[in-house]
């Protein structure tokens, strides 16, 4: 009996609930005659476009700064780079990679500035980062209005500033998803997207096992140990913040191309939360994470959302129940994980 209990607690109670819920949703989906291939195709896309945003959580957790609630900082850098790529009419897969490359210098600068702050608030990083995320979104709301973009398809026809939602049809709408894509039994396999996220997951995995990664891990699990081994704690935390911001910027570009839109202004405000929830469902804690946690968690969480939408819509046709479910689940998971951290052994 205790053996089973231990195994369950090792696997994680929330993980089990989510898996059971996902199973239930899939059964319901078949019962209600919702077209399965279409739903599964959407699942794969949702998982793919959210993966890199989840990976952005890894460096922060490793270096002991916790979940990067300031993910919107990286997202804004990515959006800025995206806007530049649109302004100069960069199209296709090349346009996507160009946007990624353009985002990196912005992310480095923003990450460096932000890490100055994070190194001064040791112990309450996650709370501070939440507000940094919110603030930077507000700041960029002004930015989107006054930045000198003038491509007619991305600015308002009348007045100043960029549009709130910009469709990517003219540039690189689903370019990665469609790259080498094929379908099996009606399920679309977005090979390009899967390749790209696999490469990023692999790179993060490699980094975790490198000397630098192990140094970062030591800083996260015991800063005094790190110092006694000659590691500059603050510079490791800075590096982690910068990498996380870069991944956030790249993540949003992958997200936008798969989604088909760039969403500006208030859209990035809450984008850290689903990423964090996914990583936590995967089994990570605010102090310990593996790439497997990210991959598994993103698959679980995003599949659940993708399947819940059509199921909820056919159960209750009016209203947006699926949105409510999404909010409850993602915030509930974050709350659960954070409460566990406080009561745990640390």
């Amino acid at each position, binding site marked *: 009996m205790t053996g089973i209990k231990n195994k369950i607690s090792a696997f994680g109670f929330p993980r089990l609930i989510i898996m059971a819920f996902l199973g239930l949703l899939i059964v319901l989906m078949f019962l209600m005659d919702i077209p399965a291939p279409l739903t599964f195709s959407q699942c794969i896309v949702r998982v793919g476009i959210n993966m890199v945003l989840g990976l952005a959580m890894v460096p922060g957790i490793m270096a002991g700064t916790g979940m990067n609630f300031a993910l919107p900082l990286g997202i804004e850098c990515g959006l800025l780079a995206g806007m530049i790529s649109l302004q100069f009419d960069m199209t296709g897969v090349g346009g996507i990679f160009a946007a990624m490359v353009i985002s990196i210098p912005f992310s480095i600068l923003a990450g460096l500035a932000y890490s100055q702050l994070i190194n001064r608030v040791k112990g309450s990083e996650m709370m501070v980062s939440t507000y940094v995320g919110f603030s930077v979104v507000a700041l960029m709301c002004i930015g989107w209005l006054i930045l000198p973009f003038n491509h007619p398809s991305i600015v308002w026809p009348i007045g100043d500033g960029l549009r709130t939602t910009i469709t990517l049809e003219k540039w690189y709408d689903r370019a990665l998803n469609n790259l080498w894509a094929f379908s099996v039994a009606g399920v679309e396999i977005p090979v390009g997207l899967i390749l790209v996220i696999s490469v990023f997951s692999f790179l993060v995995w490699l980094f975790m096992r490198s*000397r630098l990664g*192990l140094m970062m891990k*030591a800083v996260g*699990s*015991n800063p*005094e140990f790190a110092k006694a*081994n*000659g590691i500059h704690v603050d510079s490791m935390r800075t590096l982690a913040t910068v990498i996380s911001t870069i991944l956030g910027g790249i993540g949003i570009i992958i997200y936008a191309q798969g989604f088909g839109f760039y969403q500006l202004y208030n859209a990035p405000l809450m984008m850290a939360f689903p990423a964090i929830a996914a990583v936590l469902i995967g089994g990570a804690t605010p102090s*310990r994470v593996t790439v497997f946690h990210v991959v598994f968690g993103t698959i679980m969480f995003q599949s659940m959302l993708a399947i819940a939408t059509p199921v909820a819509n056919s159960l209750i046709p009016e209203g947006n129940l699926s949105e409510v479910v999404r909010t409850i689940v993602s915030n509930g998971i974050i709350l659960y994980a954070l409460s566990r951290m406080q009561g745990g052994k640390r």
Partner: protein
Amino acid sequence: MSSQALLHFKNIKKSFSGNVVLDGVNFEIYPGQVVALAGENGAGKSTLMNILFGMSVIHDTGGYEGEIIFEGKNVQIQSPQEAMALGIGMVHQEFMLLPGFTVARNIKLNRENLVPSVVSRIAGKNYELLDQGAIIGDAKKALKRLGMEINPQTTVDKLPVGHMQFVEIAREIDKKNLKLLVLDEPTAVLTESEAERFLECIRKVADEGIAVIFISHRLDEVMELADSVVILRDGQMVFSEKTANTNKHEIAELMVGRKLEAESLINVNRNLPEDYILEVSHFKVNMPGEKSKDVSFRVKRGEIFGIGGLAGHGKTSISNGIFGMYPATGTVTYEGKQLQYGRVGEALKKGMAFVSEDRKGVGLLLEEPISLNMVYTDMRVNRHFLKKYVFFSQFDSQSSGQIVDEMIRELDIRCTGPEQPVGRLSGGNQQKVCVARALITKPKILFVSEPTRGIDIGAKQILLNYLVKINKELGITIVMTSSELNELRSVCDRIAIIGQGIVQGILKPDSPNVDFALLMSGEGKENSNDRNKE
């Protein structure tokens, strides 16, 4: 001594999920008697005390077998509250005091003397006021019984660490019905002189007719204080005898179950050449609680150099300063060159290694496996155990596995395997991992701080023997900081005594006890200069 035993453990057995941790423990304790409970870490001492206190760990895991007879009655203690009601008190190894409260309030906590007030007459007893006078009076009385001069009105956070333990005892003896007092390694955090006072204190408590169970690793104390000794080994009671009928060596042997090499002054007459690997001069380290003010000494190549002294006088700050853990000033010359000790990691790069006195806080990554902990410093500093690719490196668990296995064997680390997280190991085995981590870097000079603090006697001996061995066979110079003078004397060539932040003098291990005592008490400064030149 009354004829009836106060407490009688009868054939106590306990197992945790099939794992037997106590197997047939039998002993009695009479009023006014001090029984020492000895045994290595993991021998079952804490489990036995948990049973006595009715801790929930025991009930949650299926209870225990056997009987506890307290004052002639068979008792089944279900909770710590019941234990206290019976008159059993406990002083833990860690302090259980409220730092912001006065000594008096801590002693009387939750048993305050109360006076009725207007509100309490209506709202009930919980709203009565504290009778400060009576509280202070009672506290004073309790402290006086211990022979301690502590002002009951100072707050606990302003007390020296050594005094806190006395406050805890005072709290227990202030309980009117106290009949049995359990002390769990009470002297572990005390300095030698404080410990001596503490022992006197316990004697007084026992003379009042209170029975005492005393758990300690320090055998000298056991011999001095206890009327009888009970030894547990792997859950079995292997020995129960009057202290007068035994001796320290017998106890030590019984505890570990193997022959212990006689303590000897092994390095007393080594004549090493006048070749100094390390020179420290006017070194000042700002380490909270352990400040050193002006420390100068020289260490010969190939020697074991001891640094001793009382807690709080700055001995542990020296190695911490050299390894950049705390801000420091002064010059440190290593291999003829000035060491930039302020730069993090500089000392490590130059071939020095450090085993911190704070094993869990500084020495280990508790959640990581033994293997990573062991090779970490070498990987970090010397870039070993890495597979190198063009742009990046990868940790190579294969090449590290071999040396880790070797170290586990060499140091007799008791573990389930190299992948066991170090947080699950006992203190002694954790310390061995720390030493292994320092050694794998192949240092020229090794700094070890308090290598045997809080670990059992078996591990202690293995560690000390190992330090001597690497010093002899590999020629590694060792600077060892320790609070335990006997330990320093048993392995060191020379011992510097730090008092009040300065070097009071440097002695040979066979110098008479009185010299050490004088230096520690700070009376050796005037002749320390000539001794330094020796």
